[in-house]
């Protein structure tokens, strides 16, 4: 739609003082887009590789993982993480994105009921989603890497 150039624009990102509510709102979009494009692509790729048979699945695994170091007993050394660094980084990022999107999604469902709009409550729940996503990601990957 054409608009005369002299008309004022609504205030944009740069003029606001940053707060947790603003951060989680932007993170919700960013993690949502990341999960939709990156997560869905990786997930579909994984399923299609498995459906393609042992050879295509082996190629997928070969891209994602490296060979585990072999111990003196001829078995893979326990506790040696097998993921390649880049896939590990992507997967850790995706799980963090999921936890952040999930926690803030629940926060939004509560706000849809008309609750938690008070400034202090809103700020607290925003911070809680960030704390939750970081702690949940750390715990999940600690579990994965120590199994």
């Amino acid at each position, binding site marked *: 739609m054409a608009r005369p150039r002299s008309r004022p624009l609504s205030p944009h990102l740069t003029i606001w003082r940053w707060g947790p509510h603003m951060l989680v709102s932007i993170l919700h*979009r960013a993690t*949502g*887009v990341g*999960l*939709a*494009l990156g997560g*869905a*692509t990786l*997930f*579909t790729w994984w*399923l*299609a590789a*498995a*459906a393609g048979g*042992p050879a295509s*699945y*082996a190629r997928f*695994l070969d891209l994602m993982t490296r060979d585990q170091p072999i111990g003196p007993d001829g078995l893979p050394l326990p506790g040696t993480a097998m993921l390649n660094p880049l896939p590990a980084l992507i997967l850790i990022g995706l*799980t963090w994105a*999921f936890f952040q999107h*999930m926690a803030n*999604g*629940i926060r939004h*469902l509560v706000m*849809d009921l008309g609750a938690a709009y008070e400034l202090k409550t809103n700020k607290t729940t925003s911070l809680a989603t960030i704390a939750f996503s970081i702690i949940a990601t750390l715990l*999940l990957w600690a*579990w*994965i890497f120590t199994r």
Partner: protein
Amino acid sequence: MGTGTGIGRVRGLGSAKSGAHHWWMQRVTAAGNLLLVVWFVLSIVRLPSLDYRTVTLWLSSPFVAVPLVLLVINTFYHFRLGLQVVLEDYQKESSKVAGLIAINFFTIGAGALAIFSILKIAFAGAR
């Protein structure tokens, strides 16, 4: 908002011809995702290994294949709605239309591939 006729006011749909359906489905799929994706993440991490045999054996159980197909439908529907909202906020007119078509192609294409892959493994049984 339907100022023209009585029936228009009752339906309350206005000139857009639709109401809160997009918004509501985003919430319904969000609730479904909460269950399905948490189940998926925990299940994947609890698998003893992610080698071919373990994964195909796991996928060949109806109690895995069916929730996983539901997960694909639900998450893909959810992100299809979400990507549309983001796109509409930042793009206008022609690039918006092109973007919407791309979003639809990606969602339906990847979703069909994912569901077909799950069903193929499930119907073939573990090998």
